[in-house]
Every structure is written in C-alpha cells, then in structure tokens.
C-alpha cells in the first residue's frame, strides 16, 4: 500500500524553481532515503510532504489525502527537523520536549499511556537517564537524540527525518541507522530520511531517491547509486570508492591525479 504519493510536483520560491516535476511513491513499511547536494530542494520536498508548503503544481497524498488537508492524521507523522534553535534560556525539560510527540489537542491532558510512550522513546535513544535535564544544557548530539525520541513517542506511521545525523556523537552515529531499521521492523513504521550519509544508508534502506531540483533517480540502492547519477547530483568527478557489493564512500577525483 502506498503511504505517500507525489505526482508532477512543481515548487518555486518567488520566480526561482526549486523542484521540477517530482513523481515519487513510498510504500508503507519501507525505509527510503532522499539524497542530493546542498540546495537541491530536499528540505523543501519534505516541507511539501508535511503539508507546510503547498506546491504550485501537482498533488501530494499522504495516507490517501492531500497533505495540506490532513486533520488528526497529522498525529501519525513523527518529524525530526533540521537545525532547531530554540532560545537557549528556555527552561524546558527533556521529558517535556518528548511529551510534545504525544500532543493530542487543546485541553487534552496526558494519560498513563502517553507517559509510558515517552519513557520508551527516551530509552530507545538511550536518553532516559537525562529526562529531567534542561534541554538546552545538553550537547548537540544529545539534543538531536531527544528530538528523535519526540518523533518516536507519537508511535508514528510515517517517520520523517531531515539530516538527523548532524551533530550525533560518533558512538551513537554508528548504531543510528541500525536503530531506524529496528524501529521499522518492530512497529512497521515507514521512514523517510534526508541524509548525506550515503555509506550508512545504502546498507539499510529499501529505496533511494536522488533529488537535484528534479528526481534524478529513484529505486533500490544498487540501481540508483551509479556514477552517472552521482555526477548529476554532486557534479563531475564524484564517484564511489567501493569494494564488495555495497558502495562505501563518495570521493572527489583529484584534478592532478
């Protein structure tokens, strides 16, 4: 079953085209990575999927409905934004941040189930011991893990992550993509992730969508990660350095050898 369908999506910021004719389907329960260089329109694409931006042309259906017409279905989405910078002096505790993932509407108080979901989510990202700390006293990587816990706390059908690896501690980073895979297996969550970490995602994702204003390629990792696609995404000279069946690294060929 398709959880997400984009058909002929075009988006401009004023006169500047950002996305051109994007067609993309995501099957329920899959783990899909969106790759592309900086400024390729990846974050804009996520915002369109989330219903935060409306495309000038085309349709976006999430859970079978246009994304900007979602009602309570919005609570089935877990979202980890890029570059969140709340006021450093805001006295908000880690637990309160994660509770945001259990928001169910005005004047609705939290139930026992909500509190358990928050504890589970914090344990999943190994942050349960810091639940009473102020969010802004945490390191960048710890904050990122709390934001991932907030997204997981809603037990989402669709988890959307915008470059979540930014600032993650190296020790946690290694296991991060494995953790996503486990979440998908355990809860059947569909995961859509924007990332630069080609090496890590290629080992766990079902499909990769390469975006550089247009959808350059879409398919299984081994089909998509060809030199031609990479050149289209990252410019001439980009290539894989690999041994074995899985690509391992993108390098820029040196001009003088």
């Amino acid at each position, binding site marked *: 079953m398709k959880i997400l369908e984009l058909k002929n999506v075009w988006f401009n910021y004023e006169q500047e085209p950002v996305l051109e004719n994007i067609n993309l389907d995501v099957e329920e329960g899959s783990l899909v990575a969106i790759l592309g260089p900086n400024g390729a329109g990846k974050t804009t694409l996520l915002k369109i999927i*989330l*219903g*935060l931006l409306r495309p000038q042309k085309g349709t976006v259906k999430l859970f079978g409905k246009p994304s900007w017409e979602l*009602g*309570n279905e*919005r*609570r089935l*989405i877990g*979202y980890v*934004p890029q570059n*969140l910078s*709340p*006021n450093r*002096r*805001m*006295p*908000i*505790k880690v637990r*309160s*941040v994660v509770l*945001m*993932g259990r*928001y169910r*509407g*005005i*004047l609705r108080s939290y139930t026992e189930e909500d509190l358990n979901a928050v504890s589970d989510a914090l344990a999943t990202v190994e942050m349960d011991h810091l639940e009473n700390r*102020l969010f802004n006293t945490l390191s960048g990587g710890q904050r990122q893990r709390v934001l991932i816990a*907030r997204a997981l706390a*809603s037990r989402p059908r669709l988890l959307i992550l915008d470059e979540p690896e930014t600032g993650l501690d190296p020790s946690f980073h290694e296991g991060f993509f494995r953790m996503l895979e486990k979440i998908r297996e355990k809860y059947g969550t569909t995961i859509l992730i924007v990332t630069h970490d080609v090496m890590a995602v290629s080992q766990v994702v079902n499909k990769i969508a390469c975006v550089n204003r247009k959808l350059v390629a879409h398919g299984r990792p081994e089909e998509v990660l060809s030199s031609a696609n990479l050149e289209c995404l990252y410019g001439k000279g980009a290539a894989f350095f690999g041994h074995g069946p899985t690509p391992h690294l993108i390098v820029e060929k040196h001009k003088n050898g």
Partner: protein
Amino acid sequence: MGEILSLPFVQRALLAGALVGIASALLGSFVVIRRMTFIGAGIAHSSFAGVVIGLLVGFDPLISAMIFAVVTGLAIGFFAKNYRIEEESAVGVFFPFSMALGILLLGFIKGYTPNIMGYLFGDILLVGKQEVYLAGLAFVLTILFFSIFFKEMVFSTFDEETSRVIGINVDLVYYLFLFLTAFIIVVSIKIVGIILFSGLLVIPPLISLFFARNMKAYAILSATIGFVSVTAGLILSYFLNLPSGATIITFSFIALLFAAVISKIS
C-alpha cells in the same frame, strides 16, 4: 499602612496594578523567550498616537489607544508572517510612525492640553473605575488564554515548524497572544505609562529565568514577581511621594540586580 488602603484612589491603583502586574508578567514570560521584547515596547509606543487621537476628537483616549495598539500589534504580526519582514523591522517602522503621528496631532489640540506626561510615564491619580474593570478583564482573558493554550504556547515557542506538523494552530495562538499583549499594554498605560511599560513586561520574567527549572514554574514565578513589583512599587511611591510608574520600574530593576547576584552565589 491601613490608612492608605482606605483611600479609594489607592485601592483602585493597587487592585488594577496587581491585576496588570500578574497578567503582563505572564505574557512577558513568553515575550522574553520568543525574543519579542522590542515588539512589546513598539506596541506600547504605538498606542501614543491612539491617545492623542482620542484627546483630539474628544473620544476616551484609552479606547482609541487600545484600537491603535491592537491594530498595530496584529499588523506587525501580519507583516512579519506574510511579507518575510523581520518582526523587529516591522516594529522599527510602526514604533516611530505612531510616535511621529502622535506628536504631529498633539499640535492640533486646541486650548487645554491634558496630562500627556501621565500617559507617557503613568499617574495613579488617573486610574478610575473604568481602568479597574479593564484590568480585571485583561487579567481574566490572560488567565483564560494560558489555561487553554499553555501547552500550545510552550510547543510553538520551542519548535514552530513541528507544532504545525502535529496539528497545533500556531497562527491562532500567536495572534491571540499578540492581541492580549496589546490589550494589557493599554490597560497598563495609566499605571506605568507608555514609555515604561516594557519594564513591566520584561523584568519579572528575566528575574524568574534565573531560578525557574521548567516552563510552568517560570510562568508562575514571573507572575508572582510582577504582582510584588507593582504593589510594592505603588506603596513605595505613595510613602516617598514619587511618580508611580518610575518607582515600580526602578524597584523591579533593583530586584533584577539582586536576583542576578543571588543566582551567581547560589
């Protein structure tokens, strides 16, 4: 002490002051965290044109100031959200324009010019029954707003984008908040004055930030400090025969310095 409490004008000033002190500190706690301090000052100053228009056309200056402040507050929010203009820049336009308009129109008032200084710096002798009722209304609306939307205010302050994704009506909460801020400003005019108002909005939350460990404690402590600052400032101003607004703000400022020192020691 008992003697001053029996004076009707002191009773009115204390009651209106206490209500306004609590409400403005509650709103101010989010003004500070959302880095909107300049907006508070800007809306307050923009109400000056409203005061002068009221005096010029023989309308109640408080009502015309309220209309002006609310329209300005919402206009700042509208331009900031829809025209990619920073809120601060929008304030930078409306603030001097309203003051300029007020000064220009002041010249057209014929004959006796009422106590403009009272509007600019506060004068508790100007606090009548109407101001007490308005302060009561502003207090009830503010408490009602936070009872309903506290969670939504915290979440949209922390992360506006994700708040939209999870279905919070961020714009509704934001405009209600701006409306209440504009409303409380006008109600406070006769107590602390247009120019001194931002102190009432910002200083109690800043003191509270030194000690609060979560958002609820922060808001409640801000409100308590707002209440103490205004009532203590008003009583001091009576005994020392000093202007009310200036005494309240000076008292709050000294409390802020103390809080800064205590927070460093502890």
